[in-house]
């Protein structure tokens, strides 16, 4: 195989799995608070929507990384995942407010889970870039 | 540097139907001089490797002494003996003897790096050329053939310019061509002034040796 191409790498698969966990998690496990009695939504609902979008993008990027063989393109994809992950990290509580009380679901479950997923994505992207470029150097 | 093995014996304890004491080497006297290629031949299990290992300082004799010039190497502590071996003795052990986690070049430099000796990469490359595998310097040992591995062992044993080279079955499982190459290299090394001991059951080795001794049942005799 051409030195600038690679098959399916373990790291790519791990990141894709993380993307699936993040997206399914935000939808089913650690989403924001539900609607109020009158059917209206609290501010954290919109943070949850934004995180669903971020998780979808990260999953699509990681799947592209699995199936695209060109190492330079893989590197570019990993690079792009870093700012996307950081955006996901700063949405809850900073860019979009969460509920006022810290014992609500958005604080207890969504915020910490999003923090962990986005930090893991950012760190794994950096490691992936180092691994891809090290193969290049040799 | 001259090596003198005086009244060397080595016994082992093992469970057997007869006696529990097995004498691998009995009262061996041996001298190895600079510029000489001395061959010890004999069947498998005759005790030749045991003699080599005792001369190398790697196997404590049950009795007898090993003198390098006038120095009794078994009178030294392990640390001093090891440092002495590193400086003065090159050993080519039996079998596949490279470290798999470092490249060919790094393997050759290993004895020098252990004690921070002066050998440079150029010195290592010179030795790799001498043994004919300079193109494989960045390869890992698991990608080498048997012959290439042996040549690596020879280069590694010579990096510290030892006064003594001890080779244990260096042509073990090699084909004829590689056997000739290895024996020529050893002859070449002896011609440069190194004292070379070759332990082998290879019949072709005789034409490269200055003297041949035979080991039989732990006893060493002229061939």
């Amino acid at each position, binding site marked *: 195989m051409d030195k600038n191409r690679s098959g399916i790498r373990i790291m790519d698969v791990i990141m894709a799995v993380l993307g699936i966990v993040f997206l399914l998690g935000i939808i089913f496990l650690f989403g924001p608070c539900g609607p109020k009695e009158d059917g209206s939504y609290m501010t954290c609902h919109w943070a949850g929507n934004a995180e669903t979008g971020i998780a979808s993008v990260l999953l699509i990027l990681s799947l592209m990384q699995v199936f695209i063989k060109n190492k330079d393109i893989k590197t570019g994809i990993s690079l792009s995942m870093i700012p996307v992950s950081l955006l996901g990290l700063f949405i809850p509580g900073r860019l979009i407010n969460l509920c006022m*009380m810290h*014992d609500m679901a958005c604080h207890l479950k969504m915020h910490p889970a999003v923090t962990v997923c986005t930090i893991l994505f950012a760190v794994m992207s950096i490691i992936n870039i180092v691994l891809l470029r090290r193969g290049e150097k040799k | 540097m001259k090596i003198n093995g005086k009244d060397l014996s080595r016994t082992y304890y093992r469970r057997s139907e007869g006696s529990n004491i097995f004498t691998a080497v009995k009262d061996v006297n041996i001298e190895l001089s600079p510029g000489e290629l001395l061959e010890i031949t004999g069947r498998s299990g005759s005790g030749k490797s045991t003699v080599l290992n005792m001369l190398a300082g790697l196997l404590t004799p049950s009795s007898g002494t090993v003198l390098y010039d006038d120095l009794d190497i078994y009178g030294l502590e392990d640390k001093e003996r090891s440092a002495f071996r590193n400086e003065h003795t090159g050993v080519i052990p039996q079998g596949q003897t490279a470290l798999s986690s470092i490249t060919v070049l790094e393997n050759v430099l290993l004895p020098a790096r252990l004690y921070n000796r002066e050998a440079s990469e150029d010195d290592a490359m010179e030795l790799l050329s001498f043994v004919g595998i300079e193109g494989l310097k960045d390869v890992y040992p698991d990608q080498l053939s048997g012959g290439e591995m042996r040549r690596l062992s020879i280069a590694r044993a010579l990096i510290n310019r030892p006064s003594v080279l001890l080779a244990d079955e260096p042509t073990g499982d090699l084909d004829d061509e590689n056997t000739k190459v290895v024996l020529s290299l050893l002859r070449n090394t002896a011609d440069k002034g190194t004292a070379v001991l070759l332990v082998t059951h290879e019949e072709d080795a005789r034409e490269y040796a200055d003297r041949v001794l035979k080991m039989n049942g732990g006893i060493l005799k002229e061939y």
Partner: protein
Amino acid sequence: MNFIKSLSFKNLKRKPGRTIALVLLSAFLAFSVFGGSVVVLSLRNGLKSYEARLGADIVVIPNQARSKGTLDSILLQGIPGYFYMDNAYYEKIKEREGVDIASPQFFLASASSGCCSVPVQIIGFDPETDFSIQPWIQESYKDTISDNDIVVGSNITIPVNKKLTFYDLECDVVSKLSPTGTGLDNAVYANMDTIKQMMQNASDLGFDYFEGTSPDSAVSAVMIKVEDGYSIEDVNNDINIHVRRVTSTPARSMISGIAGGLEGVSGTITVIVVLVWILGIIILIVAFAMISNERTKEFAILRTMGASRKMLSGLLKWESFLIGLAGSVAGVLLASLVIFPFAGIIRNKLDLPYLLPGIGTIILLALGAVIISVGAGLIASRISSSRTVKNETGLILREGA
């Protein structure tokens, strides 16, 4: 020795599967000890904090509040609640012998409807007699709490100088309190006049909280400091006997109940961590022994080149040090990803006061976890490899042929 260090790193790099397995094991050990110690310490901190926030020697509440466990729900879980007795009881209690200071407190739960910004616990205090809430407020706000000023607990996300409305009374948020790890972090604090106004407004709005008692003369709890020379039990019993329809409890028995729960949880965590470690160290010793055994030929080759036994020990030591260091740092980082972001859920599930230690303590715990994990690896490696290093090289070469 630098060469030995670089050789040990190369050895690990060249056998990634083996290295990763050992690193993961070391990570697991560090994860368990760091995670376990942070949780146990957080429980102890929470209990200390709970004790400090109660502040009183004796707590007196109406009988129905005791039977429903409302006070515990408020203090521990932060579930908004309310209960009232007439002021006359307060007057009786403060006259009892041995009572040094008796300070009334007022609990009100804000509603989920339009008259209130957010459903929270509101706690009022009498500035003239209070001895537990004001000192705590003083830690973050030096001025007096004026009428219509409120101070919010650490679990309420609202900036200072914003306004919140409770029962149509608009209040200024003047400060945020430091965390306690208890349900009190979910509460809002106001002076007596402010909360009395809220209570009156609530009654006027039709909220039937007061069960016949006039909001103006309703008191929720009385916090008591016992006079020097009097025993807390005696004063407590005296109140229970002579003041009807109230329950008086020494604060320390409220705490000891929780302390019992805490000891149970801490004990379980400690046992689990110890078991993990025993198993982990056994596995490490076996793993290192198998690896050493596999490498007898490699060590013999090094010996032929003049490597001393000390150098071989050094090589193994560096390998286990690098494995231990990488593993323990990874373990501490992974544990941090669990116990810090998810502290809220952990506290909810444990249902006990839970206050994370300060950053200095956390760093010390992390360092401690790294040191003992690395140490365990070094000891395991030393135990399992000592025989291999001491082998007579000539025998290995002979056998290995």
